[in-house]
């Protein structure tokens, strides 16, 4: 049967099946992204043999010592790579659960080495939620619906993270405003944030210096990013604006990279896969 034969989406059951099939491809693409991420993590392989490895542990890695940490780190990275690769190929629930557990430990050890890397949290939480997906090789209608709902939760979680970022900016602005300090509503706000960030380093970003000398342009970008982040909270319930929000968020990430030299390639790929590629033109959920 050709799932994509009915171009007019006249049959709701067929439309549901089309949507389900599209989602299964997106889930596989997500696991391919995780595989690529684990593959990039292999660049630190020399540290696996460096004992002792000093950690500043998060709670999940308190059981590791400086001598056992490199071995566990190597095991979790390699097996997470293999399992994520398998999940991209074989739609098995137990593989997804095992991948989520290994990724949890892998990211915990990576975060214990230096500082918590928030860019990876989206990948981790989506993998945890997708562990609850039923197998996608099933024809039962109810299981297809359950599959879509779990996927919908994963999308919502990502939107929630960005919505929280916008919410935190608004809450901080209220507190700073009550103290009589400058908030993000001040036209100099973006220039201050950028220059404070660049002062920590050498100030070598591509557009950072130009933005500091043109604070109004930078401020416009800051306000736009807050609006897009808050729009994520609306996008949790409104599917129609998701592509727009996703494009806005990707633009925000690229801009932050150019201005502040902070790059989140995993997040850009995650947004492109989870919100853009998974968008259903005629969704009526």
């Amino acid at each position, binding site marked *: 049967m050709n799932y994509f034969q009915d171009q007019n989406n006249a049959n709701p059951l067929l439309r549901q099946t089309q949507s389900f099939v599209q989602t299964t491809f997106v889930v596989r693409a997500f696991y391919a992204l995780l595989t690529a991420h684990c593959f990039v993590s292999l660049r630190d392989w020399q540290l696996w043999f460096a004992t002792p490895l000093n950690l500043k542990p998060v709670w999940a890695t308190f059981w590791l010592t400086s001598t056992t940490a490199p071995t566990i780190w190597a095991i979790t990275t390699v097996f997470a790579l293999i399992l994520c690769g398998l999940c991209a190929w074989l739609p098995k629930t137990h593989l997804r659960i095992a991948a989520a557990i290994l990724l949890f430990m892998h990211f915990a050890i990576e975060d214990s080495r230096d500082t918590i890397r928030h860019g990876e949290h989206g990948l981790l939480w989506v993998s945890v939620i997708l562990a609850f997906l039923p197998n996608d090789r099933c024809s039962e209608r109810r299981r297809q619906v359950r599959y879509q709902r779990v996927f919908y939760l994963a999308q919502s979680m990502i939107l929630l993270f960005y919505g929280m970022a916008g919410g935190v900016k608004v809450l901080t602005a209220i507190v700073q405003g009550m103290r009589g300090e400058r908030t993000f509503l001040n036209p100099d706000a973006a220039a201050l944030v950028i220059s404070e960030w660049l*002062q920590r380093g050498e100030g070598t970003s591509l557009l950072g210096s130009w933005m500091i000398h043109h604070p109004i342009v930078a401020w416009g970008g800051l306000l736009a990013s807050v609006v897009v982040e808050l729009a994520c909270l609306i996008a949790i319930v409104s599917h129609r604006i998701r592509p727009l929000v996703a494009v806005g968020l990707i633009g925000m990430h690229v801009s932050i990279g150019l201005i502040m030299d902070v790059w989140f390639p995993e997040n850009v790929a995650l947004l492109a896969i989870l919100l853009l590629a998974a968008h259903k033109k005629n969704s009526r959920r």
Partner: protein
Amino acid sequence: MAATEYSRKLARRFRRYRNWTILPAVYVAIAWSNWALGRVEIYPFAPWAMFNDVPNSVTRFTVYVDERDGGLRPIWSLNAKGINGLPLKIYRAQTELGRAIEHRNADEEQVALRVLSDYLKATCGKGQALLKKEVFDPANLFRDGVFDVEEQLLRFEFGESTE
């Protein structure tokens, strides 16, 4: 009318997904309660507080290394990657040392000083370093290179003594 219809639609959608709202609610409660109380983030519950604070005045402690020509070189410029190559542990040790000196906490001062001395010894061998407290408006500093307050807190030796 349209608003009523939309609110009904939202209510229907919430009823359908209400079991799934537990996880996000727990997430937000844990992440934001920690953030509001100023506690350390619990992995993997991030509050997503990024670039939210508009800096009005920044206080920074920076270690400078004496150069042979009499100049001062900031610690983060000792490696090719600049600040991105400076371990976070060292970045924090500067602040911990500065605060320990200001609060007259000798134990914490010794710990932070040892961390910095070991790093400097591994990076430059031996020499002298200076810890400075710098207070500045970030935009003014970037545009004009002017600190509001610049105070020398501690001069120390690292590696083998040069005297």
